[in-house]
């Protein structure tokens, strides 16, 4: 169904990996912020956010990601985002987020390795 939304959290080499399925907008982004927040509770060096199954994001979603990235960097960590969809990459570029503390990767393994 079009508006279904799901977040799953797993761990690879002690790096928390958050995978999102669905659309990130004003309604769903609070759940994303919350999930990243929980992952940060153990003070990891980094959190990987996998957006391969996200087919939509807007400024609200970017805002949530930017805020989480800021919080992470405050405690010395970084946010690595896995994102391949051209439409999403374009939005990240327009926002300028990828030039700040959000790092974009094509492949989850790369995002995990670079933590």
């Amino acid at each position: 169904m079009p508006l279904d939304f799901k977040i799953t959290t797993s761990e690879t080499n002690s790096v928390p990996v958050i995978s999102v399925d669905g659309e990130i907008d004003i309604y769903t982004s609070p759940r994303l912020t919350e999930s990243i927040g929980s992952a940060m509770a153990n003070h990891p060096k980094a959190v990987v956010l996998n957006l391969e199954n996200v087919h939509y994001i807007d400024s609200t979603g970017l805002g949530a990601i930017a805020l989480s990235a800021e919080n992470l960097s405050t405690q010395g960590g970084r946010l690595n985002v896995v994102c391949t969809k051209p439409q999403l990459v374009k939005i990240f570029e327009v926002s300028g987020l990828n030039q700040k503390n959000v790092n974009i990767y094509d492949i989850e393994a790369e995002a995990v390795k670079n933590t």
Partner: protein
Amino acid sequence: MTPTVETINLEIPCASDFVGVVRLAVSGIATRMNFSIEEIEDIKIAVSEACTNSVQYAYEDKSQGRVYITCNLYKEKLEIIVEDHGKGFDMSEVEAIKANKEGEPMGDERSSLGLGMTFIKSLMDVADFNSTKGKGTSVRMAKHI
């Protein structure tokens, strides 16, 4: 006499739940008009940004607020108007704040990046903002096929 324009109206409560519903309806309309997948994505984001702003900023008492979406389908373009009867804002004030804190979080909402209106302008061919303090806001946007 066939009309040169067909109109679809949608009206939602001021609640974040329903922005996705607007997006769905608009993406259906854009698909019917044979926009490309990329253009449809652009339109979805633009209309969501406008609705999100109305939901986030327009009404003190959200439980009474409504957001009105009008889609005008022309042969050569899709025009979408998103309106609220909320508190409105002073565009030049907002522009000034944005100029000062480029890329910094702004407004009440800590996670807001001040990107909403920028996205609408950059993703659509036409983007007119009209806001009157105490009366409400209307965003008219259009994309050519």
